[in-house]
């Protein structure tokens, strides 16, 4: 029976606790158990007081001691406060001290529905900037299982950029490669949901396009899977739920351009604060915006 992303995270977490691991975070046992991603139990769950910064430091200490903590941040807005121990300690530990601090940091992105400037958030790009952490954005059950297996097999700290829009989804995305495609759409985070609609709209306009789904942001592997469709289509767009400027979309677009010489645009959040009012929202690029960017690129040659 298919599971949703949230159920997958919950079941992996339960298994981790059964194996002696712990989950650390604020308000984990509140109504909903973090969108149904935490098993409804007290065993293995460390409720933190509302101590951002300190809370991630506690998680780092537990990681040093081999407890492999899952550190949960219910909104990525909280990453700004909690980043320091993660990037300054956990990320450096193996290189500097010779022992790892493998925190599995779950940070949940959200948008719309009145989230406004406070909780419209997707800040995984911050963590790509600093050495020592692996950064990924799994959006499907199998992807989550794969990145969890990767975490367990290694000893690196992970920044796992989740998105609320994925939690109730059972979808498994596959790359879509078409003969005669005029553009390749690279999709990250919740952009992966919108890009499917955008591709459909482009096809209705007679524009063939490729879709390449990206889970790993750092390390970002510039391999044949990502390069071949771009070389064939001659142009590309990277779509991400995070801010465009100095963000994952621009960074990946740069890598792709450098490797192929093909023009690649970045499309992410606009460079302004998101508002609560519907017309002031600033979330993941919509299908309409992706279509506009694609047709504009194709028109410009």
């Amino acid at each position, binding site marked *: 029976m298919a599971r949703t992303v949230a159920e997958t995270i919950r079941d992996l977490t339960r298994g981790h606790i059964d194996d002696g691991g*712990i989950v650390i975070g604020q308000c984990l046992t509140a109504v909903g158990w973090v969108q149904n991603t935490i098993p409804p139990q007290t065993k293995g769950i*460390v409720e*933190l*007081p509302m*101590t951002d*910064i*300190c*809370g*991630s*430091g*506690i*998680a*780092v*200490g*537990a*990681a*040093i*001691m*081999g*407890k492999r*903590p899952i550190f949960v941040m219910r909104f990525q807005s909280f990453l700004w406060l909690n980043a*320091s*121990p993660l990037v*300054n*300690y956990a990320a*450096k*530990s193996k*290189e*500097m*001290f*010779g*022992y790892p601090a493998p925190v599995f940091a779950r940070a949940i992105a959200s948008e719309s529905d009145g989230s406004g400037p406070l909780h419209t958030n997707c800040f995984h790009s911050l963590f790509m900037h600093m050495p020592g952490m692996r950064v990924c954005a799994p959006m499907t059950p199998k992807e989550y299982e794969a990145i969890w297996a990767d975490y367990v097999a290694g000893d690196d700290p992970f920044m796992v950029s989740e998105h609320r829009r994925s939690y109730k989804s059972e979808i498994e995305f596959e790359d879509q490669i078409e003969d005669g495609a005029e553009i390749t759409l690279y999709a990250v985070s919740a952009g992966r949901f919108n890009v499917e609609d955008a591709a459909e709209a482009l096809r209705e306009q007679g524009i063939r396009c490729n879709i390449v789904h990206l889970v790993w942001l750092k390390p970002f592997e510039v391999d044949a899977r990502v390069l071949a469709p771009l070389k064939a289509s001659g142009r590309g767009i990277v779509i991400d739920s995070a801010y465009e400027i100095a963000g994952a979309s621009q960074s990946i677009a740069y890598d792709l351009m450098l490797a192929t010489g093909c023009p690649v645009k970045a499309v992410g959040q606009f460079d302004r604060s998101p508002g609560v009012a519907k017309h002031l929202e600033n979330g993941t690029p919509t299908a309409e915006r992706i279509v506009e960017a694609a047709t504009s690129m194709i028109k410009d040659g």
Partner: protein
Amino acid sequence: MTDANSAGPAPLEPLDASTPYPVNPANDPRRSPDFGVIDGLAEEMDRDDSLEMFRRMALTRYFDLRVQKAQLDGDVDCFIYLAVGQEATPAAVSMSMRGSWVLGQHRCHSIYLSFDGGPMALADELLGLPTGCCGGLGGSPPINDIDKRIIGHNGLVGDQVPVAAGVALTSGGDKVVCFFGDGAAEEDYVLAAMGFAASRDLPLLFVCEDNDLSVLTPTVERRTWSLTNVAEGFGMPAVDITDDPWLVDHWTRKMSENLPALINVRTCRELWHVGAGCDNNAEWNRYELTKETLAGMQLAAEVEKIETETSKFVEDLWRERLQKRSEILPAGT
């Protein structure tokens, strides 16, 4: 002075009703070489233990004075945070707490050496050698010797304190000692970590090495509250004392029976916050006072022997490591 059976000094109340905390350091009896001293502790300690405690103080002092010279000579060019003047606290705490998990920060060579971290690895670290305790990446603050349970520090003020809380949360009951300074005590995450330790009843001893200076800004300019008051507010035992090593040892043993707890130790930094310079503003010289006490216990000859041996050990170590560096790193590296 108080006697050994008392509840200890009473530092948690204002000096009197008309003198709110803080007071000008010059008029603050807490900043005194006698603050909270208990008569007879030195004589009560086994003589060999007293000498071992002094040996640890001497190792820090001679080592850090050698680092100071190395910087002045141009052999060490990284930022250095020297513990000269503050040797007593880690040496005393280590007497009963070696084997615990230990975390520290700036001015931590004293912690590292007192808790049996390898002197050669520390010298190599300061010399930028791959055999340094952080592979040459860390420099002066990031002490690290995991085999001795000394957990590394990344150089950010006080961020070892939440990490220490996480270590204590998952240590299986093993004790944890976390050193930090009076400046770090003002970091929000340090206070939050104290609150978490109290709420979770963690086996964590907080030791604040209170030299009254954050870089060069005195406490009176920075805050109106005392850390011991805060600790008590969190519900943990707390004591405020001077850095007499026998006194620190006494309270460490006593407090470690009922963790978490805080010991705020008034101490004096002889050298700059960072670098080899000296402002001559230390209010007392604990190292010399300790020697005087030992001399009063008819141990002057043993003290002299320890200093001679330690001085030779440190000099030989640095000579050999400087030679080693010249062999493996290009000139000017």
